[in-house]
């Protein structure tokens, strides 16, 4: 969208200077992004290489974050794990947007029968706890590929987003400019695309960011209970491995734990901040 103008960018940069939390969050998310895009350049070792006789080594100069019980470098695994977490979260957000956008927009704009139909479906999905659905779905799929995890998370989480989009659409639908657009003879789908969507895009972006943080947590949860793919490193998988050695080798869990916490925190802060930046223009 053409939503981010010069003013928004100036506002963003100005606030970045003033708020240390914002500055930290932006830097942190940038680091994670670089890690997930170029892990092969940053990671000191191959994350799956086992170093004989180096099992459960504490942090040292050769292994900055220590090693796990089979002697793999934790730092390299954390760096490669960023890629897993980030891409799975991004993929799941895209999947949920693909479903939630049309459902929310159509239900909110047309109301009546379509609204009833879509909203009852979402209600039915909302009454089962997400994490339970997630575990059932991952078990049923049996494959542990990232694609299936992305699909499952996207397919399970869309009702929340759809409800918000519907609510926002309901609000915008009653605005005078939508009535004005109708009085100019525009068709409904044209109005939805060109007048409704641009005006609800900022809450959608904000919620999608928050959802990304959730998906990182969900992915970690799935891996933590041992349902993830054992061949690719992920933060949740590291927690799963380190669980048995909490007393003897706490670094296996502590470092990925810190990464999960800081990433989720930073993304949430950025989402919050993004909502301020994006609503700026409408006023």
């Amino acid at each position: 969208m053409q939503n981010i103008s010069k003013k928004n960018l100036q506002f963003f940069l100005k606030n970045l200077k003033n708020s240390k939390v914002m500055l930290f969050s932006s830097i942190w998310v940038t680091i994670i992004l670089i890690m997930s895009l170029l892990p092969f350049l940053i990671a000191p070792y191959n994350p799956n290489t086992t170093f004989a006789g180096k099992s459960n080594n504490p942090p040292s100069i050769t292994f900055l974050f220590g090693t796990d019980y089979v002697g793999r470098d934790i730092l390299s695994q954390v760096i490669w794990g960023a890629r897993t977490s980030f891409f799975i979260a991004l993929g799941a957000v895209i999947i949920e947007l693909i479903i939630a956008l049309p459902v929310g927009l159509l239900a909110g704009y047309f109301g009546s029968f379509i609204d009833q139909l879509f909203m009852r479906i979402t209600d039915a999905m909302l009454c089962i706890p997400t994490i339970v659905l997630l575990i059932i779905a991952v078990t049923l799929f049996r494959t542990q590929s990232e694609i299936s995890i992305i699909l499952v998370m996207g397919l399970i989480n869309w009702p929340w987003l759809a409800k918000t989009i519907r609510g926002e659409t309901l609000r915008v639908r009653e605005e005078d400019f939508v009535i004005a657009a109708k009085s100019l003879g525009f068709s409904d789908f044209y109005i939805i695309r060109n007048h409704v969507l641009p005006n609800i895009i900022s809450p959608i972006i904000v919620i999608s960011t928050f959802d990304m943080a959730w998906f990182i947590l969900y992915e970690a949860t799935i891996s933590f209970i041992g349902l993830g793919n054992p061949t690719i490193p992920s933060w949740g998988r590291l927690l799963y491995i380190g669980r048995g050695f909490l007393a003897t080798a706490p670094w296996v869990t502590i470092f990925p734990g810190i990464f999960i916490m800081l990433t989720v925190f930073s993304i949430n802060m950025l989402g919050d901040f993004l909502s301020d930046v994006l609503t700026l223009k409408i006023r």
Partner: protein
Amino acid sequence: MSDLFSKSSKAYNENILSIRNLSIEYHLFGGEIVRAVDDISFDIKEGETLGLVGESGSGKSTLGRSIIKLLPPSAKIVSGHIFFEGEDLIKKNEKEMRKIRGAKISVIFQDPTSSLNPAMRIGEQIAEVIKFHQSRYSKIEVKEKVINILEKVGIYDAEKRYSNYPYEFSIGMRQRIMIAMALIINPKLIIADEPTSALDVSTQAQILELMKQLQKEFNFSCLLISHDLAVVRYISNRVAVMYMGKIMELASSKEIIKNPLHPYTEALYSATPEVKPTIEKKRIILKGTLPSPINPPKGCRFNTRCYKAKEKCFKEKPELIEVKNGHLVACHLV
């Protein structure tokens, strides 16, 4: 029903819009029915401006909206015809109506702040109308047309302003943009629904002056809806006074000021402030407020507040009759 208006669509020779016996009802949530527009007939001639005055709740906006068939879902057209260029709009379906809206009939809304999409550049918003209705123009031609119309409605530096967002304009400027949007593909009829109510007095005058001038240039007919008799008088050829869904009086704007026949028109006129303090005007103060539209008074609808009401007014509904050439009144006292 009076036979003042010919009932056939053949009346379209000089009349761009002919409304015949139009009734619109609102079906409220509790099952109550409000007749917002009750058996109304009038014509708008080509190039003419008809002013529609009335207080809030008189049904004037409902009437305006019904012409482009964009009524709220609770409202229904019960009976009547709306002939536009000789064709009955009531019989048209949504798809056919879309081709008329914006292209042949445009609406100027009351509040230009909320009627413009806040997330879209104003030039694009106007260009959109051309793109939707006349796809034959190229991008450059469309932009030229938009800049041209922006200049005509008095936006300086139109080429630069093209890519500004609505919040970067003053409210008077926004109303000019709304007018540009309504005029961009040269519609035959403009429905101006309280176009100046949201503006301050000095801007009001500018906008009215602009509309007068544009009407000469674009030669559109106009239905001007307003609660302000002064505004209506300023640019209308004829004025219709509405009260509780009925037309009380219809005459040329000169005639209605000089010689108001209906007590309601007299009261309405006496309430408009006079610029010259030397002119002494008797202020007629009506008692009470609008009666409930769910149970409108029997007989003349104005009888609860009329200061001249007689016994007959409480029993019989007055018909709209032609008193003088072109001067129509619905009152027993005339």
